[in-house]
């Protein structure tokens, strides 16, 4: 829109329509934000322990023991670093495996293709929970003893790698045939073509969906608490909750931590996505 004709030249029909549409969108967004705030207030109120009397009936909202919260918040928050550590280690392992599996899917050599599809099928065909226990409880029977964290990272990495192989496959497929041909015509070997031309473009394509997977992984990392030896958020929440019979407060605290973390990561991801979408594509 022209910024220099404020209040002077008459606006065209299209400009008026566009302005009206913008107003409508802004109005909608504002209303959604207000509704969110109201829902949040209602939720806080439901856990406030207040009594409400409507006519003759009295409702009592849920009572939260704030002394417990204040006493244990540091202990539970201490699990954040472990949760983040597990998630970061696992996402890197998952990315490496996903890329290998995606490249395997492109192979014309049957054993490699089979290895890739076999891995994806096996992992996607069994529960993540089982996989975590397999590494932690089943492997010791074969003389392989892993720490809870290592078992968790291996299981999460393997599991997400299988799911994420689709993302990398789509990334590789997004690079057009013309790109490969241009590289080949320059005299590049298949390895150089992959490394210099195809992979950089495929990875850029894959970054936003990998971000989504990472966010999902921070939450699935809670399953690792089942080993009983990884002191991440979930483990700490259940430990103090069970011991003092304050599961309600403990789980609410953990939920708030997970939710905040997810919101923060989603925000960071949207910034990265904006950066990637402009400029050099």
């Amino acid at each position, binding site marked *: 829109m022209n910024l220099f004709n404020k209040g002077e030249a008459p606006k065209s029909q299209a400009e008026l329509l566009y302005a009206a549409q913008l107003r409508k969108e802004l109005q909608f967004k504002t209303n959604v934000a207000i509704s969110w705030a109201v829902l949040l207030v209602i939720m806080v109120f439901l856990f406030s322990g207040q009594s409400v009397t409507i006519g003759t009936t009295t409702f009592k909202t849920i009572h939260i023991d704030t002394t417990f919260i204040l006493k244990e918040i540091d202990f539970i928050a201490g699990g954040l670093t472990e949760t983040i550590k597990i998630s970061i280690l696992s996402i890197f392992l998952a990315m490496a495996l996903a890329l290998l599996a995606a490249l395997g899917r492109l192979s014309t050599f049957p054993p490699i293709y089979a290895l890739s599809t076999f891995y994806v099928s096996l992992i996607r065909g069994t529960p993540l929970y089982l996989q975590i226990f397999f590494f932690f409880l089943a492997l010791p029977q074969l003389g392989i003893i892993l720490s809870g964290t290592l078992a968790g990272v291996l299981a999460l990495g393997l599991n997400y790698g299988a799911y994420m192989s689709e993302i990398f496959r789509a990334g590789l497929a997004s690079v*057009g045939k*013309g*790109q490969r*041909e*241009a*590289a*080949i*015509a*320059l*005299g*590049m*070997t298949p390895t*150089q073509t992959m490394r*210099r*031309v195809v992979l*950089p*473009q495929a990875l*850029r394509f894959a970054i936003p969906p990998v971000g989504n997977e990472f966010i999902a992984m921070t939450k699935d990392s809670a399953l690792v608490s089942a080993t009983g030896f990884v002191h991440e958020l979930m483990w700490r929440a259940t430990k103090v909750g069970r011991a003092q019979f304050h599961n309600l407060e403990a789980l609410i605290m953990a939920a708030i931590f997970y939710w905040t973390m997810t919101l923060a990561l989603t925000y960071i991801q949207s910034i990265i996505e904006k950066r990637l979408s402009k*400029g*050099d*594509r």
Partner: protein
Amino acid sequence: MAPIVKISNLDKYFGHLHVLKNISLEVPEREVVCLIGRSGSGKSTLLRCVNFLEEPSHGSIEVAGVKVTGEMKGAQRRQLIHDVRLKTGMVFQEFNLFPHMTVLENVIEGPVTVKGMDRKIAIELAEKNLESVGLIVKKDEYPMRLSGGQKQRVAIARALTMEPKVMLFDEPTSALDPELIGEVLNVMKKVAYEGMTMIVVTHEMGFAKEVADRVIVMGDGELIEDAKPEDLFSNPKDPRTKALIDRYRTDSGN
């Protein structure tokens, strides 16, 4: 003069479709050859066989003394094909610049990665060629920011920076808006006048007339006419050539 490109008894099948039928063709050094013909006549496939983007089904191809025959197999064949590709530069209809690299990075990519050329020397060479196609000011831009004509000129600079013996052009102006065709043809003309051997698949009859030393007409996978442009355009022998030229006259209105 010994030919710099020599195609002998070349056949190409796509499944049961016989797209190139026993083609033999010699191109002497410094010659500019335009390949014309209706779509589906096999002209692009023939061009793509020269640097083995398409594998010929039979026959041999020799470029600047490197000969690849149908009998060769395995590592030796791969090495020779690689050598042929180093002797040829290719320009595509769709430009195929690398979108994740700047203009300059696109142009030095071949010399640095493939030839192992020192980066500084490659940049000097690349800048010289970008200067020559008139795009040195755009060297730090990404391809996305360029017009189609500019992209194609960068693609020409990229191919030239590999210092090939032969340049192959596969319909270099077919994906361009009409007003951008001229700038690309001008660059190609310049390359031709500097003595480059060129094989150009094109629909631009004006370019063929003005710049080509020889125009070859393809039809149904065969070379149906091969003549100097002045003879071909004034006195076409094959009715298919005549039809092609007539349509061009109607299109361009002269």
